[in-house]
């Protein structure tokens, strides 16, 4: 049977989202979505020795947009960045006990936002390493 409405876990994360906020001077920053479409996510990460030590988010969007953002921060915190890059949209949805089919694409962008933040971190790191060599 198709899922009707949100799982208890989605509602729990929606009502009590983890790691809300911003990080000043983050090691990585990712932004996906667009307020025109109704979803916008911003992710901030702090990274030490390629391990994500802190992570914060801000999200404009529906219940699943907020819940997936919260969930992805919980999943990725403490992970090596290369491992965190492997977290997929489906992984996030699975951890939330599923999402209604219509929400799987539009508001399940949290993994993408995480990946953007990690890419940003890696780019910054490369620039830094290049500068150090000079």
């Amino acid at each position, binding site marked *: 049977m198709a899922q009707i409405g*949100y799982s208890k876990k989605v*509602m729990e994360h*929606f*009502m009590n*989202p983890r790691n*809300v906020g911003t990080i000043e001077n983050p090691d990585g920053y990712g*932004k996906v979505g667009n*307020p*025109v*479409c*109704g*979803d*916008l*996510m*911003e992710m901030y990460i702090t990274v030490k020795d390629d391990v994500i030590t802190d992570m914060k988010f*801000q*999200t*404009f*969007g*529906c*219940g699943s*947009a*907020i819940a997936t953002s919260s969930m992805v921060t919980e999943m990725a915190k403490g992970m090596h960045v290369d491992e965190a890059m492997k977290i997929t949209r489906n992984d996030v949805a699975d951890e939330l006990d599923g999402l209604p089919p*219509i929400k799987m694409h*539009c*508001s399940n962008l949290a993994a993408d936002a995480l990946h953007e933040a990690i890419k940003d971190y890696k780019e910054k790191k490369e620039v830094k390493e290049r500068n150090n060599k000079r």
Partner: protein
Amino acid sequence: MENIYLDHISSRSIDPGVLEFAKRFLEHDYGNPSSLHSLGLEAKRVLEDARMKVAELINAENEHGIIFTGSATEANNLAIKGAALRNIGKGKEVAASAIEHISVINSMKELQKNGFTLNLIPVDSDGIVNLEKLDEILTKNNTVTSIMYANNEIGTIEPIREISKIVHEKGLYLHVDATAAAGHVPIDVQADGIDLLTLSSNDLYGPHGAGVLYIKLGIKLQPLLLGGGQERGFRSGTEDIFAIAGMGEAARIARLKMTKEGNRLKKMRDRIIQEILNIEGSHLTGHPTQRLPYHASFRFDHIEGESILLNMDMYNIQVSTGSACSSKTLEPSHVLLAIGLTHEQAHGSMVLSLGKSNKMEDIPVIVKVVKETVERLRKLSPLSKKEVM
């Protein structure tokens, strides 16, 4: 916390008196009104009694103009497709306001696929139909023009008499979808100049499963459903006597209670609007005064409507939203776009529709929960730190 239901625009509880009146047709009075034996005749008597009660609610010339359907959506389909196809000799044009219910818009779009020209009439930022544009757009080729009595998403009441004058000066037919308005504001199809009018049972606190299309005597429509010729041939199919008897009784009760209940709800509505507009970045949608007595609709900067709905529901308050994220198409409400809102603005909408169960004493709780919801979601939103949209 006690539950506070503020989504009467979506569904209403059946009136206990209506249920008491109609339930015998679910239990033991199961005759078919087309049968000539005693059980059939009893069903027929109740059917005609319901017709009379609905006719009185809208001041129809007589009960013969009342055609029962299965829903307001069906009545809208019958009015539009029925009028357009039956009067195709006049031309192949139809017109509607840009804020009509989706059952009107989609009926017209179907005609458009079949060679009709669809003219959408713009509305102003309060949702009032542009009368000059209406006058400009309507030609003698028009077969039906559909303008709603009041809008379900923004509460605006349209100037139906002025609209009717424009439509009739050109010798055309006016269909009015009064689903959100009937039973809540006085409607007089004769004085208002309405040729076709849609009503819903549940919006009168009747059971789901019945609607009405009022058809002014002499107007010809092509039926959608063919069969045994029930409802003067306009709508074949054995009548749902439970739903119809209930709708009739609901119409009778609505007519008696309209003024008093309307005044009570209007006071609550105005108080809610006043208090919610105190929240920074909140805006009323729809007309400030020319609006349904039970309807208060808003939009909030930087937050999204489905989140508002879910958050309010966690505090046992049910509301609705025109946000894209809550719709099956993932498109924001066409009504909110038609009044000139941007996509971002349309995402943050919330509709509070009051009804019988709501009390003035509930208002402080409602306002408190709205405030907390807006505050919490803004803290989560990356847009809050940027300038106001």
